[in-house]
């Protein structure tokens, strides 16, 4: 396989990979359409849907008014009406205006109707800080969403996942929320053709190791991989786990990693209190207690609305040196 695969291997960006995935889905299935603020003429706030209006027309690349609740709710209704909508919300902070629809309808209708009304909807949104956008465009609230039963929460962190997670997400009969970290859109990487079906439930070990498990997802993955390189230069052998799916959490992969390394650092750009990191740690304490050879460490954002000034924002966010220091504490 390798010869052919290597030939087909190419370099692309996270943004282009998302666009390719959407275009592919829309060509394959008439029921799929994209709607959101400025997805059409503008080409998407982050340029993800640039050029799609030209190919698919304004009915299927549908610009919406700035009415998050109405267009997310309309996505839910359209899904009930037989469509396979992709709804783009500009940032996770704005998604709060649609939280009623996401929680009270999308996540709830299947159960509340006794199984009659599945909602096959994909909602994409940008999350995270790092671009000096200040407190109303920078938060990482995916952990909140992961609290809600009835939805699936994905956080693609690589070009490969940006390209290949959408198709299974659209095939899922239930709502799927996809969180795209703003710092990743320009990231480029190698993209190989898909060789096996994508399992949305599974985390990925991005770097195998034996000394400490660095567990993270989304925008923190590149930082954690950099920290792992730094630690490796010191003779340590860290393992990096990319959760990919924040709900459901892949406990089997987490537990197997802890059983290998006996030390854990969870890295999460959300605030520490009540965070997804807290959930991961609690699960490890419940399931892997007798595997732990050091207290579990967390590297999270400071408990502050993300500030504008560069040095303040940097100080508020998990950084490579923080991850490396936490990892050293576990083995030190």
């Amino acid at each position: 396989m390798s010869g052919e695969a290597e030939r087909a291997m190419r370099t692309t960006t996270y943004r282009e990979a998302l666009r390719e995935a959407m275009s592919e889905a829309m060509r394959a299935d008439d029921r799929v359409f994209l709607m959101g603020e400025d997805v059409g003429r503008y080409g998407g706030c982050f340029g993800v849907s640039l050029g799609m209006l030209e190919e698919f027309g304004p009915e299927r690349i549908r610009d919406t008014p700035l009415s998050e609740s109405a267009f997310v709710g309309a996505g839910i209704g359209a899904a009930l009406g037989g469509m396979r909508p992709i709804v783009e919300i500009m940032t996770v902070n704005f998604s709060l205006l649609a939280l009623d629809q996401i929680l009270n309808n999308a996540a709830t209708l299947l159960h509340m109707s006794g199984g009659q009304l599945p909602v096959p909807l994909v909602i994409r949104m940008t999350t995270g800080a790092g671009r000096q956008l200040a407190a109303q465009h920078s938060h990482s609230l995916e952990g909140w969403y992961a609290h809600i039963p009835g939805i699936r929460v994905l956080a693609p962190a690589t070009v490969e996942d940006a390209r290949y997670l959408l198709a299974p997400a659209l095939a899922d009969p239930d709502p799927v929320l996809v969180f795209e970290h703003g710092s990743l859109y320009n990231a480029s990487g190698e993209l190989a053709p898909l060789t096996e079906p994508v399992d949305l439930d599974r985390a990925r070990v991005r770097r195998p190791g034996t000394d400490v498990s660095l567990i993270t997802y989304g925008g923190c993955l590149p930082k954690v991989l950099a920290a792992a390189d730094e630690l490796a230069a010191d003779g340590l052998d860290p393992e990096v786990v990319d959760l990919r799916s924040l709900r459901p959490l892949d406990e089997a992969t987490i537990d197997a990693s802890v059983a290998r390394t006996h030390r854990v650092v969870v890295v999460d750009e959300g605030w520490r209190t009540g965070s997804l990191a807290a959930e991961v740690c609690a699960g490890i304490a419940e399931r892997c207690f007798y595997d732990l050879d050091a207290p579990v460490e967390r590297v999270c954002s400071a408990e502050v609305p993300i500030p504008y000034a560069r040095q303040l924002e940097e100080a508020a966010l998990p950084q490579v040196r923080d991850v490396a220091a936490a990892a050293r504490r576990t083995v030190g």
Partner: protein
Amino acid sequence: MSAERATRPGRTAAAKAGGHHQDLLTAMLRIRRFEERCVELYSGARIRGFVHLCIGEEAVAVGVHRALTPQDAIVSTYRDHGHALARGVPEADVMAEMYGRATGCSGGRGGSMHLFDAERRFYGGNAIVAGGLPLAAGLALADRLCDRSRVTCCFFGDGAFAEGEFHETANLAALWDLPLLLVCENNLYAMGTALPRHQAQTDLAARAASYGMVAWAVDGMDVEAVERAARRAVEGIRAGTGPHFLEARTYRFRAHSMYDPDRYRDKAEIEEWKKRDPIARLTDLMNENGELTKKRLARIEREVAEEIDAAVREAEQAPEEPVADLLRHVTSPPVDAA
């Protein structure tokens, strides 16, 4: 069924009208008697949770449904018994749901406020005020994208006018010419707050019209008037003139919910509105027309009572959803790879 009966050849126009009136009367009585039984069962703790009654408002549900076909979709509110029954959701299924039984129309997971029937395109009672409106717009959008000549009808109350979701949806529906019928059941109170105490401009139809859609107000205590208005709106929507708004001015005779002491309304005001009871109004009309005898009314009452008795019996005996199935329907069952 009523349509068949009404168009049977060889009947005089008067007889047709009489048959139609009788259908309307039966449908309204069914809702009222059903809800009266609910009060009794609630008081006896057979059903629990929140129960919101539409007694006094039956003409809106019945009149609007006369204008809809089985292909059209309904989105309702937490005051949804009348809408569900008018839509044809079987009384036994609704009652079993109120009992929280496995045979309930939502499998016992919804209760009074969340009646669902996907087969009848009844997309449920939504208990977030205005929360059903965006969803209804989406159902209409799907029909538009697929070029289907179907209408989605969304019920909501006057309280929804204070919610952003109403205004967002009204704009979206008009902007996209969605085949959506917005029916505002204006019963003058958002729970306990009178309309003039929560809206600066109380002419709701005028405000809906400001979004660029056809909007009318109609006497919600007159079932025939509601039916006529709804037919006109649905015809307009099917003709492609975009969403229509109907404000049905109505009144609930009972408190907001079973737990409401009703302190915010004047008893005299309630009595005044009761004089316009849609059921009494229709029976008066039928009596005047000689369409209704005492015997016939008694027969209708008896039949409705028997239906409800049967529904209660069924609900009483229906199995409970096993606790082992608690986590069912949170996510869809996995699809076979094959």
